Structure formats: C-alpha cells, structure tokens
C-alpha cells in the first residue's frame, strides 16, 4: 500500500485531500475561517481576527454576524492551507447567486464573495451570493427534497426552500403515555415526556422540523450534534424571534451570553458538548 505524499504542487486547489481534509489555495486572496479549523499550511499566510482594522471593508460586505465575530479569522496571503474539523466529513459547496442556511457549528470556511448573515432560525447562519464554502458533517451530507420531516439534531441546513416549521407528533406523545396538548407545548420539551424517551433528552420522534416547498434539505447521519456554535444574540426588539421579552430566565446561556431560546427537542449546549 502506498500512501500519497503531498507537497504544495500536488495538493488540490480548493478541493478535498481526503473525505476529512480540505485544501484551500490562496493567491493573494482571502477566506473566512472558523478558529481552530486550520491544521497545517504552506506559504505566506496571515491570520487575523476579524476585528483587525485592515479588514474593515471586507467585514462590512461579507460578515454580518457581529456577536459571532470572536469565532472567526480571515486568512490572507499566498499558499495552501488544510482545513479539518475533529475528523468529521468535510465538503465544499458552490453557491451560484443562491442562498443556503447552515447550522453554525457545521460551517468551517467561506469565500468573501459570499455574505454571511444570521438566520432568523436560532443557531443557523445564512450564506448569500456566489462563491464557495466548506462545511463539516458527522458522516457524509445527504441531500433530500421536501416534503419531509427531520430530527432537528440531524439537520445540517437547507437551500432555496422556505424555513422549516415545527412538527409535533401528537400520536407519539399519546402512545408514549403522555397527555398531548393538555398543558401546552412547554410540557413537551421540558417535562415528563422527555424522561420517557430514552438517552439524554428528547428524541426526534416526538418533534421534527418539517420542510415543504421546493428546495433541498441537508442531513447528517447522526442525531448526536456537533458542538453548537453560538450565533450571537439578536436585537431585543418586538417582532424579532428570540429577541423579545419573556425569555429572560429560561434556556441556557450561550458562550457569548446570547439569550437564544431553547427549542423543544434540542439539548442544552453543555449536554450537547459532553454528549459527543
């Protein structure tokens, strides 16, 4: 068995080295990277936090998730760098004047020709424009077409189709011996049902995200989440989901102190982190 040996000439330009490693080529260009995802590089490459003054114009056009800024750096220079994330599968995706929404923790890197914005679905980010981005997933990403329902924890993201809605399996709740609806949705997520559904919290059988309309749904083959990345708080104003009053004391606080509401069926950040 011969193992390939790579050097700067034989490493792919913007392609996979193996299913778990992606190589980005920089030729005086820039990429946004999530911190901690660069494993090695050749050449002259500089890494700067996106608060760096020289990057202000770039950030103004391509980075619109201010409270998320501490997690990202900009790589610029000339050379080739390898990206990887805890031996998860990594893949690049090309957007052509399109949009794709992705779980924040799954996004590793993107070209500045794309604009990154917070989705109104908490925990997700939307990429808009034309360009390439790199994402990690637990197992290869599987593409499905709506209509379908997915376990929230297996959802990587979606493209083109409308944002999902919650679907509660009334029958499952009843069959599990609960009293559906009687005490409202709150009891689904928090109370007795969860205790009955096995390991580590709610299972996807009682609650799913439902997708309808035209588009593509991206799934990963695990319902154990990759550690969640906080997307930052949203402005506290009327009409902004998760931004209004009434969430004060509930749910876990994200690492950045975000008041992201916890949806039923989702585990807390800490549990998720230790659950891997």
């Amino acid at each position, binding site marked *: 068995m011969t193992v390939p040996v790579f050097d700067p000439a034989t490493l792919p330009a913007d392609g996979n080295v193996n299913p778990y490693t992606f190589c980005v080529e920089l030729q005086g260009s820039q990429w946004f990277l999530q911190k901690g995802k660069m494993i090695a590089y050749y050449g002259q490459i500089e890494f700067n936090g996106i608060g760096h003054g020289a990057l202000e114009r770039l950030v103004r056009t391509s980075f619109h998730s201010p409270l998320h800024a501490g997690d990202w750096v900009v790589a610029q220079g000339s050379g080739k760098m390898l990206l990887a994330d805890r031996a998860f599968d990594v893949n690049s995706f090309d957007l052509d004047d399109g949009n794709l929404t992705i779980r924040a923790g799954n996004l590793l890197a993107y070209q500045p020709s794309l604009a990154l914005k917070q989705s109104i679905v908490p925990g997700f980010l939307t990429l808009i424009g034309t360009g390439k981005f790199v994402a990690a997933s*637990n*197992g*290869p990403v*599987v593409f*499905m077409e709506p*209509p*379908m*329902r*997915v*376990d929230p924890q*297996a959802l990587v993201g979606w493209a083109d189709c409308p944002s999902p809605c919650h679907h509660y*399996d009334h*029958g*499952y709740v009843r*069959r*599990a*011996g609960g009293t559906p609806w009687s005490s409202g949705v709150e009891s689904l997520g928090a109370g007795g049902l969860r205790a*009955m*559904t*096995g*390991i580590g919290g709610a*299972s*996807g*059988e009682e609650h*799913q995200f439902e997708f309808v309309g035209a588009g593509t*749904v991206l*799934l990963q*083959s*695990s*319902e*154990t989440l990759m550690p969640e990345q906080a997307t930052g708080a949203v402005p506290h104003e009327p009409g902004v989901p998760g931004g209004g009053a009434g969430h004060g004391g509930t749910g876990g606080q994200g690492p950045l102190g975000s008041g992201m509401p916890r949806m039923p069926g989702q585990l807390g950040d800490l549990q998720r982190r230790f659950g*891997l």
Partner: protein
Amino acid sequence: MPFREVNSKMVEATVRPGQTMYSQRGAMLGYRGEVSFTPNLQGGQGGLASMIGRRVANEATPLMTVEGDGTVLFGHGGHHVHVVQLAGETLYVEADRLLAFDGTLRQGTMFMGSQGGVMGMVRGQVTGQGLFTTTLQGHGAVAVMAHGGVFELQVTPQRPVHVDPQAYVAHRGDLRNKLSTALGWRDMVGRGSGEAFQLELSGSGTVYVQASEEKL
C-alpha cells in the same frame, strides 16, 4: 423490509402498510410519507423479548415500533452501521447495538447457563450490564451499530477466534463460546479486571468485531 445503506453511518428503510419494524428510540433522522413511531412500553414482542427493551441504555422502553407508508432514515450517535441479512439463521447481538430490524424476525434472549449466558457473564463483568444477550432469528435484515465499523472474522473448526469482549459486536452460525484468557494477558490488564478475559468462539460461523475497545 430491506435497508438501503445510504452511507457508512445511515440506512434508509422502506415501510409499507401491514409491515412492522423496530428501531432504537431516537434513531430516526428523518422520514417522508406517513410513518408513525410508537414507543414500546412492553418491548418488542412482549414476554422475554421485552428484555431487549430493558437492555438498551438501561431504560424501560428504548425500542419503538415503526409503521406506515414511507421511507425512514436511521442513524445513531455517528456510529457506523452494518446491515446483516438473515436467511433463517440466528444472529446473536448485544441489544444496545441494534439500530433497527425487521419486525418479522423472532426476538429472543439467551440467559446465563445457556450458551449466551457465558457471554452474558463476560459482559456483565465488563460492563455491569445484564446477564443475557439478544437473539434475532428468521428471514430479514438487521442494522447493527459499531464504533468505527465492523470487520468479519470467519470461524472454522480448525480456527477458533478469541475476541476482546469490548470489541465483540455480534455473531452468527453454529458457534460455541466460552471465556478464555491468553498467556500473560491477565497480568497485563490486572487480575481483578473484567478485561482479563477474551471470548473464545469455536465451531463454524462468523463473528463481527468492531475497530474499537469502546463500548457503545
């Protein structure tokens, strides 16, 4: 009810009216069509089989019945999934390794004192779990989980195989099993340790071993 292997960590099952399948709770990743999931308070087929239920994660009701008309994606914990086709024979498998299986398969439990019991003793020592292992018999498919995927070892009368109980996943065929310990192994891992034993499988059949000493 066949499983289609979508990739190494995900299988797709087609569910048709009148057919039943069982899966581990929480293993559903997504589905299309009209499919219902019913948690099994009584365990798969009742009676002894309910033990299967109890085994998984030490929960009272870890299995669920899947019925309806549509397709379901199953996966769990990022573990590799291996599909075993049974044509009348019996698969011996740890219950917590079962991702999903055909409802037509007959479920059973092997207790201590019988063949499975010896294994149960090993498992019990190692993991503190129960003293029995699960059997599935008949014609159908079983999706089994393993950490890092499984490899198959053929066992022949001339060639018994010794397996680390932590890495043992399942076996099929006409196999006898007993505890053994290799020369020097007990000194190495410590005498009191449950890991001091290997599972010795002899006869004719196949044993499935995972690429890890880590229990699921």
